[in-house]
């Protein structure tokens, strides 16, 4: 039987290849994603292990809770105690902060929002960086730069440059060019600068502070032994003592959670969509071929093949196609990962490089999904094949019997749809954790797609009925024929269209969802901000130097400059933002959307009262008059009483208190200044004021001055980047569904060979024949496009409504939808090229005699 399957596959090469492509692309994406994220994961571990390779023990501050955006510091004096511990040969404090070097006026910072680091330079025995030119910085005013910066900026040892610090621009001199570890790895697009500890402490207001204390063991003292000794020497409960390796693994896993996992799950989600679309196509292809091979299966039954053997033939075929496609997919996955590496590099998210490795887990997952889905999708058609009675071998024009299952389709589809809708509702409104909510949401969406695909056959006839009028007008008799061909087997047309529906549906959904995200930001800027200009810190989680506020206030044309600062804080184990505002000016620059309270209440906020954002108040069940205890990342706590609630999921999303009340809760280095909202004096020229602000803040390179329009543009441009990435990833699924259209057309042309011969013999030209096939494809793609658009709008609307409290609003993307519909028609035309050619090439006489 296996020989039979293999032989069958090799004689139906084109069909087998088209079927294989349907699953191959999905598998490519899965294995590519796994290879890529494995690489990232491994790179992080490797990078941090190299970084700590010279360090035996690390001492660090234990934050009261984890917040990946906030650095915590410990008392640098602890180094004395560490040095005194048994077995310690050397111990030094180390600080890492955000900052960057400016070479010839060109800032050497990370693009794409990743932080740029300045590290304090420790002695060479502990330092993960080693000079490849010059030396490590020792005296104040000296720095060393990573070789990547040197390459990019052409900066030389001995050159005078400037350093962007918390305290403004500092003139420094490059004394060395350094490389990380053995030079083979780097933190994606490294922009690291090394500076002496004292400079970093002074310029980042960290006097007496350190990020870590590094210790090196005397010969013969093991890491574990040294860790125990240091621990014994440090009675403080708020410090952590780890071996170098433990620290490296922890840092790698934190970073991996932040980046690697997000990339992994996002890409896997898109790969899942591709596989789902592939499953539809495989199901359809097998349904068609089983129908076409009715006679063959019946004959096999008459000569003694059992039902199980027939099932085996079909499923075996699926198994082989799935296996071959998966193996090729795994190979292409490596190429895909390599391509993504290049792509991320090109758009400025340089990934840490360590080379691609195919792990056995990747192979197992890719094979299991590829083969599993193909076999699964072939099972229903295979079961139908087993229902073919042997007697069909004796009848001409035997057709596949109608399965019992088919009669239950509408009822079953409705049950699936209801389950899917329930899943989506649960995903949107439940209070479970985000992962399970997203999974239920996705599961619900998949069920709805499946249900619509099952029901789609019932709308094929009416839809084609409507479409055939204009099509017949445009294409004449050929158009009429095409319409009739499309309804000949509604189930087939429906499933082919459904594959396209999924891709288009998600494209529409993503458009609406991302549009809602953009709207939530731009809407917030329009509705909440009374200010004209905003000064923020570049990079994420960055705070502004304290001097910025006075510099802004001194600019002519500035009417009000209202400072806002914040810190991560926890209430009831959940992390929120604790925001400090200037009570007298905040209502001049910001419009509170009050639920309970008024602008007057802001003026009277005391040292122990706070305003709470509505969604947070709901989550924590807080109302005006209630008290809550809050602990900030510095470990300090305070109790506040709710003085009012307001709605703002975007700008001031947290607890608003007087900045005087915030100050004592901050870490010692924090300025408590993240943003300055500025209003201009009426009648002043906005451009002039903004230019004056830029000029006034020249000494503070981390400060960024933006008008409201510029902020909106920035949001729009980052949103568009996301959208482009989503579109690119969904394009793959749409492409797969095009292969599905090609496949269905090729198969139905094959089935209608004799009929095509007849059409040609009665005077249909090749051009007309091609037009007929093209219209069939266009009808299918219009059905898919329309269903997809409708579902996409529905999903988009549901998700935007469900997340309304988080600021998402539903915007109907009219223009885009028109574009997507046009594109689906184009897709149909493209898909028809190959099948139309094949049909037109058929020899009339041979086609007529074809049996």
């Amino acid at each position, binding site marked *: 039987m296996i020989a*039979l399957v293999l032989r*069958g596959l090799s004689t139906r090469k084109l069909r087998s290849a088209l079927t294989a492509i349907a699953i191959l692309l999905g598998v490519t994406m899965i294995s590519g994603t796994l290879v890529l994220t494995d690489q990232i994961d491994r790179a992080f571990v490797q990078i941090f292990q190299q970084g700590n390779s010279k360090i035996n023990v690390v001492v660090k501050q234990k934050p009261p809770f984890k917040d990946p955006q906030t650095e915590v510091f410990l008392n640098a004096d602890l180094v004395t105690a560490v040095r005194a511990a048994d077995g310690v040969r050397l111990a030094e404090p180390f600080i890492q902060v955000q900052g960057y070097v400016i070479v010839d006026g060109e800032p050497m910072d990370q693009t794409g929002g990743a932080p740029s680091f300045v590290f304090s330079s420790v002695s060479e025995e502990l330092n993960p960086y080693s000079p490849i030119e010059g030396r490590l910085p020792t005296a104040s005013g000296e720095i060393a730069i990573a070789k990547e910066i040197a390459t990019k900026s052409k900066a030389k040892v001995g050159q005078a440059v400037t350093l962007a610090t918390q305290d403004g621009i500092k003139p420094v001199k490059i004394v060395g060019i350094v490389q990380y570890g053995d030079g083979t790895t780097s933190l994606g697009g490294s922009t690291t600068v090394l500076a002496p500890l004292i400079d970093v402490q002074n310029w980042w207001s960290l006097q007496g502070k350190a990020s870590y204390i590094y210790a090196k063991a005397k010969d013969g003292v093991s890491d574990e032994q040294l860790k125990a000794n240091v621990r014994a020497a440090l009675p403080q409960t708020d410090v952590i003592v780890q071996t170098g390796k433990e620290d490296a693994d922890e840092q790698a896993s934190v970073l991996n959670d932040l980046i690697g996992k997000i990339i992994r799950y996002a890409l896997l989600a898109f790969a899942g969509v591709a596989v789902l679309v592939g499953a539809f196509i495989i199901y359809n292809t097998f349904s068609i071929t089983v129908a076409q091979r009715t006679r063959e299966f019946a*004959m096999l039954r008459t*000569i003694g093949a059992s*039902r199980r053997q027939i099932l085996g033939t079909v499923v075996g075929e699926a198994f082989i196609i799935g296996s071959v496609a998966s193996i090729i997919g795994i190979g292409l996955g490596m190429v895909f990962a390599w391509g993504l590496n290049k792509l991320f590099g090109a758009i400025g998210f340089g990934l840490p490089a360590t080379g691609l490795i195919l792990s056995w887990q990747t192979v197992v997952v890719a094979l299991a999904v590829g083969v599993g889905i193909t076999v699964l999708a072939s099972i229903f058609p295979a079961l139908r094949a087993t229902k073919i009675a042997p*007697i069909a071998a004796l009848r001409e024009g035997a057709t596949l019997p109608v399965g019992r299952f088919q009669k239950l389709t509408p009822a079953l589809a409705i049950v699936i749809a209801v389950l899917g809708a329930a899943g989506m509702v649960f995903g949107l409104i439940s209070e479970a954790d985000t992962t399970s909510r997203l999974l239920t949401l996705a599961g619900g969406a998949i069920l709805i797609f499946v249900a619509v695909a099952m029901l789609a056959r019932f709308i094929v006839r009416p839809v084609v009925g409507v479409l055939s009028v204009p099509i017949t007008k445009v294409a004449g008799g050929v158009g009429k024929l095409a319409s009739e061909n499309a309804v000949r087997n509604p189930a087939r047309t429906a499933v082919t269209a459904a594959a396209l529906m999924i891709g288009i549906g998600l494209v529409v959904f993503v458009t609406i969802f991302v549009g809602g995200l953009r709207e939530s930001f731009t809407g917030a800027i329009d509705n909440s901000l009374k200010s004209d200009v905003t000064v923020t810190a570049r990079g994420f989680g960055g705070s502004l130097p304290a001097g910025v506020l006075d510099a802004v206030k001194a600019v002519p044309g500035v009417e009000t400059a209202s400072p806002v600062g914040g810190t991560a804080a926890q209430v009831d184990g959940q992390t929120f933002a604790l925001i400090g505002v200037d009570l007298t000016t905040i209502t001049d620059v910001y419009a509170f959307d009050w639920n309970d309270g008024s602008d007057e209440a802001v003026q009277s906020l005391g040292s122990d009262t706070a305003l709470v954002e509505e969604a947070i108040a709901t989550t924590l069940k807080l109302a005006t008059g209630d008290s809550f205890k809050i602990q900030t990342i510095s470990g300090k706590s305070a109790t506040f009483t709710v003085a009012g609630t307001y709605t703002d999921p975007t700008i001031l999303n947290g607890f608003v208190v007087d900045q005087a009340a915030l100050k004592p809760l901050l870490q010692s280095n924090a300025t408590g200044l993240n943003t300055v909202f500025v209003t201009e004096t009426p009648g002043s020229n906005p451009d002039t004021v903004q230019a004056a602000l830029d000029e006034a803040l020249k000494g503070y390179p981390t400060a960024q001055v933006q008008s409201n329009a510029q902020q909106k543009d920035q949001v729009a441009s980052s949103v568009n980047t996301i959208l482009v990435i989503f579109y690119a990833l969904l394009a793959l699924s749409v492409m797969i569904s095009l292969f599905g259209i090609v496949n269905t057309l090729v198969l139905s042309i094959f089935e209608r060979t004799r009929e095509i011969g007849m059409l040609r013999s009665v005077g249909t030209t090749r051009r007309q024949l091609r037009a007929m096939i093209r219209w069939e494809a266009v009808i299918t793609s219009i059905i898919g496009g329309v269903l997809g658009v409708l579902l996409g709008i529905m999903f988009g609307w549901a998700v935007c409504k469900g997340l309304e409290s988080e600021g998402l609003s539903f915007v109907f993307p009219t223009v885009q939808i028109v574009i997507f519909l046009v594109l689906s028609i184009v897709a149909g035309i493209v898909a028809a090229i190959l099948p139309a050619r094949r049909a037109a090439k058929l020899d009339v006489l041979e086609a007529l005699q074809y049996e």
Partner: protein
Amino acid sequence: MSTEITSTPSAVATDAVVVATDLTKIYGEGDSEVRALDGVSVSFPKGQVAAVMGPAGSGKSTLMHILAGLDQPTSGSVLVDGTELAGLNDQKLTLLRRDKIGFVFQFFNLLPMLTAKENIELPMKIAGSTPDPEWQATLVEATGLGTRMTHKPAELSGGQQQRVAVARALLSKPAVIFGDEPTGTLDSKTSSEVLALLRRAVDEFGQTVIMVTHDASAAAIADRTLFLRDGKIVRDAGHLSAGEILDTIKTLE
């Protein structure tokens, strides 16, 4: 395998391979009721070629389908090589077809992707058994295809294809071979080659053949000729010449 097939002692002559008793087949209900078979009883002894003839709608195809276990009678019984077909489930029917029945179809029904030789071996492969090489060689010789055995069906003429189909039916030495218009799509020359092979299967190899045909020259090779009309056997004759057959058909119409 044979243990899975319920054997019932036959009351009829032990040399009968296929025995039908009082077969009735009714399609539809009420006014639209059609009696395709109306109380047919017939038995086919071993080692004969039997031809079943009759005008369209006479019930000849239905009879063959029921005898071969491809269709169920409304009432009546069929024994194939001592096995009662009534009540056999699909699995048992499949095994019966595998072991005891061979088929030759009007449209050959060869698999296009297999060579002639592979098509012949197919039923044995499906059954998971190995053909007797001597018997296979004899059959290959009998088809007269010689070196064309490695060709695919598309490269063979209709007559050659049908001879391959006959060889395929014979390879497992079934108790009976059913032919459904085996010469229906062949011209007279190629059709006579196929008929000669069927004749030889009976005379030399001791096989039994029951074929439905409307081709008088095909029926003329038969040892026995049955004529059906309106679901009843109207004449059960021994060997008849083509001329006699045509005369009988005229009287039936």
